């Protein structure tokens, strides 16, 4: 378990080499395990990659701060959920394990908002046009889930209000870029 927590720490820090290590470490086992749920190897690999990314994302966003079970269990439960979800969508009737009510891949659609793909592409494009500082700030806030204090420290800004005002400026600039 110690190694798992060490890896988690590294993932929080953004260590993508460690992520690759984790990918390779559990790949074979996942293929074996997932093969029973879905026989399409390409699909399984795709799900595996998405699960690894979800693991990374959860670590980065602060959603996953410590492991109650093992890293493998966490990773595999994400993968398992994704696979059963796919089966359901494809109307494939498989025996779903009972604990499928909790969605570990929860995309935070808390307020029932489904996000439009085209709209997202637009936002992404506009985001890329932002200045480096804006991108960093927004990334820390929205992707890393840093609070105002943490951002202040990370970016060496004067105080929380400075952060607030800079954030607000970046958001309005982004809006302008989208509406162009």
């Amino acid at each position, binding site marked *: 378990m110690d190694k798992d927590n060490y890896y988690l720490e590294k993932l929080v820090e953004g260590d993508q080499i460690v*992520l690759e290590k984790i*990918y390779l470490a559990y790949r074979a086992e996942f293929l074996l395990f997932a093969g029973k749920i879905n026989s399409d190897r390409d699909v399984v690999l795709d799900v595996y990659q998405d699960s*690894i*990314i979800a693991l*990374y994302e959860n670590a980065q966003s602060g959603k996953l701060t410590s492991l109650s079970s093992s890293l493998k269990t966490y990773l595999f439960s994400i993968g398992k959920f994704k696979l059963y979800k796919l089966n359901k969508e494809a109307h494939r009737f498989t025996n779903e394990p009972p604990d499928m009510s909790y969605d570990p891949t929860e995309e935070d659609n808390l307020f029932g908002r489904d*996000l439009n793909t085209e709209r997202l592409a637009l936002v992404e494009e506009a985001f890329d046009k932002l200045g480096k500082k804006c991108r960093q700030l*927004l990334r820390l806030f929205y*992707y890393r*889930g840093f609070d105002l204090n943490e951002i202040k420290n990370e970016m060496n800004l004067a105080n929380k209000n400075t952060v607030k005002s800079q954030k607000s400026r970046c*958001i309005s600039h982004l809006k302008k870029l989208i509406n162009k």
Partner: protein
Amino acid sequence: MRAEYLIEMYFSNGLSPEDQRELEDLLNKDEKLRSEFDFQLEVRAAIRKKEHKSLKKRLRRVESKASDKSSFKWLAAAAAIIILLGLTWYFGVSSKQNAYNGLYLAHFKTYPNVVAPIERSQINESPTLMQEAFYQYEHGEYEAAYGSFQKLYDREKSEYAAFYGGVSLMANGQYADAIVQFDRVQNGDNPEFEIASKWYLALAYLKLGDKSTAIPYLKAVQNSSHALRQEAAELLKELNSN
């Protein structure tokens, strides 16, 4: 502003369930707030999508390296190397034997049936053991033929039975056992089979890698009047150049 604070808390994972309900309430009441919040959700989703894309690209690269390792191509290459090594070892270890193996294969032929040429009509009636033996011999059933010749030899002690039994054994790859049979034909009454046996003895010893024992036999065949003398001379020449 309370709403602003709650939204900030939401994005930094700091909302308690009660706070969440409060935020929902506020959002339901305020259109402007709702669209502002929605926009921030979009920003977050777009950044996540961006990260996801670049990570996916990276993992796909890792995957292709990993699957190359376990791909059929690699297995085929590894298998080819193993086979190559195996063949090298095989040919390397028995190099002495192998040099003669080629000669053996070039010169070994089963001796023609000069004793009892089989006619089809004879077989259908109750065949004698001899006919059966030669039938089997001529049809490549060497193991069975040897069995029959062995029975015949036990009964008659005849040279031809030992001789053809020996040739059957040779054809079946049992060289040492064949030598035993051919030895029975030496100093006997049948010069044809005696010389022919010397020929086969030479071949058997060669196959077993014993050139020095084979050569005197070949010389004896060469110096005889047997039809095989020419071939014996050839083989001797081939051996001397080894």
